[in-house]
């Protein structure tokens, strides 16, 4: 209403803020370009052999030359990551919902979720590889690493429901299902999405850890396996190329999840609103 004054922070964006936004994008790119240039320069000036340290140009050439092999491996790793992520998302949210419905179930099981989380996955992976088929073991690794943030964030979200809104639902005699669907899940959505964003990167880590643990003994052909294999063969440029692809995959996964989160929350949640709103 008109009686509400405009807060002092709501100034129109000035030229300065556009300038600083451009700098935010340009500066990291400049740092990257400088880093690559120095790397290339050092390799050339000191005439370092590619099996010790390949220059960026050599890595890039390998990336193109080995693309048929590397792209195949990228697909394998991405698929594993996706399966682990899906399992973590479904498992984490389902467990949180179960815990929310029954206090006793939460008390009985939550400690084990914590134990699973704090035990380093790199130490669990070899055991899993003994008892499970390799592909399953890799997915289970991805799940173990990634499900906990989903579980704990969803639990936090479900417990952060506005007390008065919950009272309102009780006043009108809402069923458990109605309270869950109409109140608890929408309230928890920003938290769930935050958990999923962390889980995306973690499931990639889980998949890589399991592939490395499986090592050359495994029948796998994921990117991490390529890195291990190339290491044994002293094919250092291919190690760098595979690493580059893993990083890119991680960035894309994070970007996609951040975008999904933004699209789902942009209409109402503080985190997705611009400063001018």
């Amino acid at each position, binding site marked *: 209403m008109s009686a509400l004054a405009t807060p002092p922070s709501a100034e129109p964006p000035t030229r300065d803020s556009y300038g600083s936004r451009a700098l935010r994008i340009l500066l990291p790119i400049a740092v990257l370009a400088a880093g690559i240039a120095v790397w290339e320069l050092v390799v050339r000036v000191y005439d370092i052999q590619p099996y010790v340290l390949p220059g960026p140009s050599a890595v890039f050439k390998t990336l193109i030359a080995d693309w048929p092999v590397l792209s195949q491996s990228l697909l394998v790793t991405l698929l594993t990551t996706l399966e682990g992520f899906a399992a973590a998302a479904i498992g984490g949210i389902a467990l949180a919902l179960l815990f929310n419905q029954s206090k006793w179930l939460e008390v009985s099981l939550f400690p084990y979720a914590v134990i699973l989380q704090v035990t380093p996955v790199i130490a669990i992976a070899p055991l899993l590889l003994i008892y499970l088929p390799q592909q399953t073991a890799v997915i289970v690794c991805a799940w173990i690493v990634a499900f906990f943030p989903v579980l704990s964030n969803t639990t936090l979200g479900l417990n952060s429901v506005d007390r008065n809104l919950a*009272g309102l*639902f009780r006043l009108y005699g809402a069923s458990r299902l109605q309270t869950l669907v109409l109140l608890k899940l929408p*309230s928890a959505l920003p938290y769930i999405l935050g958990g999923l964003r962390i889980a995306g990167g973690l499931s990639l880590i889980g998949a890589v850890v399991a592939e490395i643990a499986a090592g050359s003994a495994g029948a796998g052909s994921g990117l991490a396996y390529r890195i291990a294999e190339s290491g044994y063969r002293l094919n250092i440029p291919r190690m760098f190329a595979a690493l580059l692809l893993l990083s890119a995959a991680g960035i894309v996964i994070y970007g996609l999840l951040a975008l999904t989160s933004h699209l789902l929350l942009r209409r*109402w949640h503080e985190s997705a609103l611009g400063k001018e709103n």
Partner: protein
Amino acid sequence: MAEFAASNETDTADLAVRLRGVTKVYDNGVVALGPFDLDVRKGEFVSLLGPSGCGKSTALRLIAGLNAPSSGSVGVAQSSAAAKVAHAIGFVFQEPTLMPWTTVRENVRLPLTIKHAAATDADTRIDKTLRQVGLAEFAGAYPRQLSGGMKMRVSLARALVTDPDILLMDEPFAALDEITRFRLNNDLLALWRSLRKTVIFVTHSVFESVYLSQRIVVMTAQPGRIAADIRIDAPEPRGEDFRTSVAYAGYCREVSNALAPSYAGQPDS
């Protein structure tokens, strides 16, 4: 929440709410309320007035059935409307308490959704209620786009949409600026005159309670008991003329005097 038992007393038919010997002791041992007796007639506008923490909000939550009394009985008249979606009580909280993830329209629809109202019936009710609170053009807006006063109107619309007989309001306008508050006071009075709901209005403002109420129940500090029960016999309809009248000032003095002992002994009084 107990319905009225088949009471022998003849005057219960005229009552909307009846509290007898109600107390509320919280788990930490704090006695918040009582013993507290209250009769509210159907169609009456009653204010519960008292210092912060005197248990007036507690009393309201007990009437709504949001909390159970530690002892005593809470009786609420059953809804007179036959419709399936009818609900005896509408509640307006101190904060707007809206769902931020959906529009004004869907917020107002909430009680009807919970009660499985038919879509067409629900749409008619929502349109009518939004018109009553003056928000027809804002049906598609999200709560964050609204001012504090408009959010409170949405909250009021949501409470009214089931056509309750009793409207419980817990310091609904306390956080608003004075001009907005006056406007909402006037609109609330107009709604009350046309709809003839029973209204129980919790406030700590002497001026607001005198302006709005037919009757003011002044409460003591913790634990909340009744200190005075004052009728405000000013003629209807009340407007800005009443707010500046001598009679209004007189009532305010009387109520303030009744309230003063409740603040005695408090360091900041």
